[in-house]
């Protein structure tokens, strides 16, 4: 599979969850594990641009797919992704544990629907639990992210599903083997 544009080896054991694989084998600890039964959404990542719960998938099920984690939204040193920036501006996080899951779920939502209604936003974040904020600031952050993304016509990387990996014609600049 590819994770944040980088080819990764198969998981060391077949029963490894995708969440554990990303954290333990890829060192991408921004993906958090809150419940391990698919309710809290802390472990949300993008699979081919769509939000999925990495605790409900085996890593081997992601073979042949592109996984984007929160670390892949805005590479270190670059500006924050609009969703991340909106969270910062709106105080959309406190302890930060649920935050990567929210950020990825909202990124997935806005990938599919760049102009959501307030009702669609409410439903879009209603699969993630936050125990700190009480959601008001997260709602504001989504509205702000919509504004920011409309101001920036070409969203930063991680936002749109990359072209599928096809053998022989790798998108060379981003592909690297580890």
């Amino acid at each position, binding site marked *: 599979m590819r994770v944040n544009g980088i080819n990764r080896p198969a998981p060391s054991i077949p029963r490894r969850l995708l969440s554990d694989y990303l954290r333990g084998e890829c060192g991408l600890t921004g993906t958090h594990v809150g419940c391990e039964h698919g309710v809290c959404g802390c472990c949300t990542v993008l699979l081919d641009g769509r939000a999925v719960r990495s605790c409900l998938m085996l890593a081997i099920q992601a073979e042949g797919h592109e996984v984007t984690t929160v670390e892949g939204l805005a590479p270190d040193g670059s500006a924050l992704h609009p969703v991340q920036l909106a969270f910062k501006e709106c105080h959309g996080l*406190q302890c930060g544990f649920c935050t990567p899951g929210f950020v990825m779920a909202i990124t997935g939502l806005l990938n599919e629907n760049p102009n959501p209604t307030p009702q669609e936003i409410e439903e879009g974040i209603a699969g993630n639990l936050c*125990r*700190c904020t009480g959601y008001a600031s997260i709602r504001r952050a989504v509205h702000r992210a919509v504004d920011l993304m409309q101001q920036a016509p070409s969203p930063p990387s991680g936002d749109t599903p990359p072209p599928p990996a096809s053998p022989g014609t790798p998108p060379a600049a981003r592909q690297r083997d580890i």
Partner: protein
Amino acid sequence: MTTRWFGAPVQRLEDERLLRGRGRYTDDLDERALHGCFARSPYAHARIRSIDVQAARGAPGVHAVYTAADLPFGDRDLPLLIPHPALTHGRTQRCLASEVVRYAGEAVAFVVADDRYLAEDAAELVEVDYEPLPVVITPEAAAEARHLVHEDVPGNVAAQLTQQIGDVEAALAEAPRTLSLRLRYERGAAQPMEARAVWARWDPGERRLLVYDSTQSPTSIRGGLAVLFGLPETSVDVVAPDVGGGFGPKIMLFYPDELLVPYSAMQLGRPVKWTEDRAEHFLAVNHERGQVHDVRVGFDADGRVVALDVDFIHDAGAYTPYGIILPIITAAQTTGPYSVPNYRTRFRALYTNATPTSPYRGAGRPHACFVMERTLDAIAADRGIDRAEVRRRNLIQPDQFPYDTGIAWQDGNRAVYDSGNYPALLDEGLRLLGPRPVGDNVGLGLAVYVEGTGVGPYEGAHVQVLVSGKVVAATGIPSQGQGHATVMAQIVADVLGVEVADVQIHSGDTRRFQWGVGTFASRGAVTAGNAMHAAALQVADKAKRIASEQLEVDPQDLELADGKVRVRGVPERAVPLAAVAILSNPLRYAFGGGAEIATQFQAPPRLGPPLAGGEQPGLEATGFFSPSGSTWASGCHAAYVRVDPRTYRLEILRYVVVHDCGRVINPLVLEGQIQGGVAQGIGGAFYERLVYDDDGQLRNASFMEFLIPYATEVPDAVIGHLETPSPLNPLGVKGAGEAGVIPVGAVIASAIEDALGVPVREMPLSPQRLFDLKARSPR
């Protein structure tokens, strides 16, 4: 003090790291750590006949399996943190149970393996032969004492305490009207999104132990581990890194893992990590909130309370490691913002075969508020008086401060309210609430509350100006999301006249600051905030002393601003703080030009030693703050709700909070705390319920069935502020961490009672429960 940052809605400094996925939570550490997993009791009460770990020890990848018999401290009771004379029968568990288990989830064996998967496999192979014993699961059953949780604790009574002001019996006898109510508040659970985790590494060469722990009190963990392992405390470092929410249960210590992870790391010579999963978090981490209150109240024809008698039982769970702080807080806070001339409170803390209880956000206050507010609503109904008016008639008035309640507080002193304006809170709450929405099945809920915050004994801080001119500061208390790195930077930046982004705060790391107590009881801003302020003031004084030599000006004529020490009224006569930091070290060495600025050959010659008597090198200082008493925050919550008459779904139409926590450091952070508290309160009032069966099994230990509210259940609260500064600390601040949650149960109960016309005497509620109440009520 200039107040440039204090009070401003500064965006949080810690956010970017967390947003990029670069946070550092305990489970993020690895360093090829071995992984631990517990074998836990499936029984709520059982005698252990035997434990067989042979198969587990032989399982693939297993490095060790520990039972109590394998531990040098296996026969020691874990510490009782806060003893109290009334706690006559305090009991704590052992690290690993070997004779009797007293709640489902009590730890029996600890497996260490190459990874968590293998550790869980092996834990399943631990064979324990249990002889089940009778189970006591509700506080009422504990009071009946047909069975005992501890053989040597008669009546299951861990503690009892009675306090009285005035003469309650006489006042009740003379009262024109009296009412009796039984008010039940069930157990709840904090459920931070990060469950608990501990990681430890033993360095045999340096004989140092390093522990990362998702705790609210790393300094206490460090002290305990040093004693237990016979190490100098200076050889034990404990770090609470990013912690994914605390809300109380992470102030509890010691959980068994907090001993076993470091112990096994020392034994095995490898880092060891244990990360709790959600299922075991439900069982193994302390709960809160089970209390049943019998209330008798006497009042006059105008609805003024003349006597209040509250006799309550408290569900302590199987052990009392945290003492009896919860019922003590309930007892002290029941009368809340109201003047009650005759008040008697009696509690019994009772053992049950359930997970032990200790503070969860609110910590006995939600119960207290529920009791008082339900009682006032009952008085209003009895007298046919408007509910707001009944409250107005009973509120303590602004000229009555300091107000001595006469009741013992959690710090051992009496609860004395320092300042406030309760009638103004009520008026502002009603104003913000506005007119009642049209429609049927709409109800109004209302509650006024106080919150004792900023409890001692103390916190400290170290503030240092680096030779770059940037500032680093450290305090012992860790953050679990409260924004310490921002609000404390605001306090320091104001005193030192620097940009808030140039102040880096370290918290919860004993390597950086070894003194302190912990993050609990809404005390961080009051105690550590004022300690930061004290330390920064010393640094500012020192900077002025040093700069005064350089500028040949009296220190009193200097001020700190724009990153410089400058002459008041002559801002161009200034020394950069960076240069002062270099000058503060007589060696005066620095890369990048600093040495030239500070060379002794540019400064005027000085008599005497380079380091004057009593001075220390470095532009740094340590400060402490120890409060003379708690600061009492206060507030009013009010709501309109609608209850669907067919499904009993709850819709919160408007939720208003007016809050007074003294001077506000950062309104963004404060409103986040309040809104988050309201959400937890709504969860605890209508969605979350811990369902124990008669065998003591928690039947809903997952997020599928323990319903933490999603965004769809939580409205945006309308938040207003009053600022009545506390006279008890230089910053005038009070705590705010628990204010959002305290009155929510009372408000929701009040509103639902109003909407449905049925008496509500219990928490939590649910659609099913409302259906039952409605079906039972006379038409």
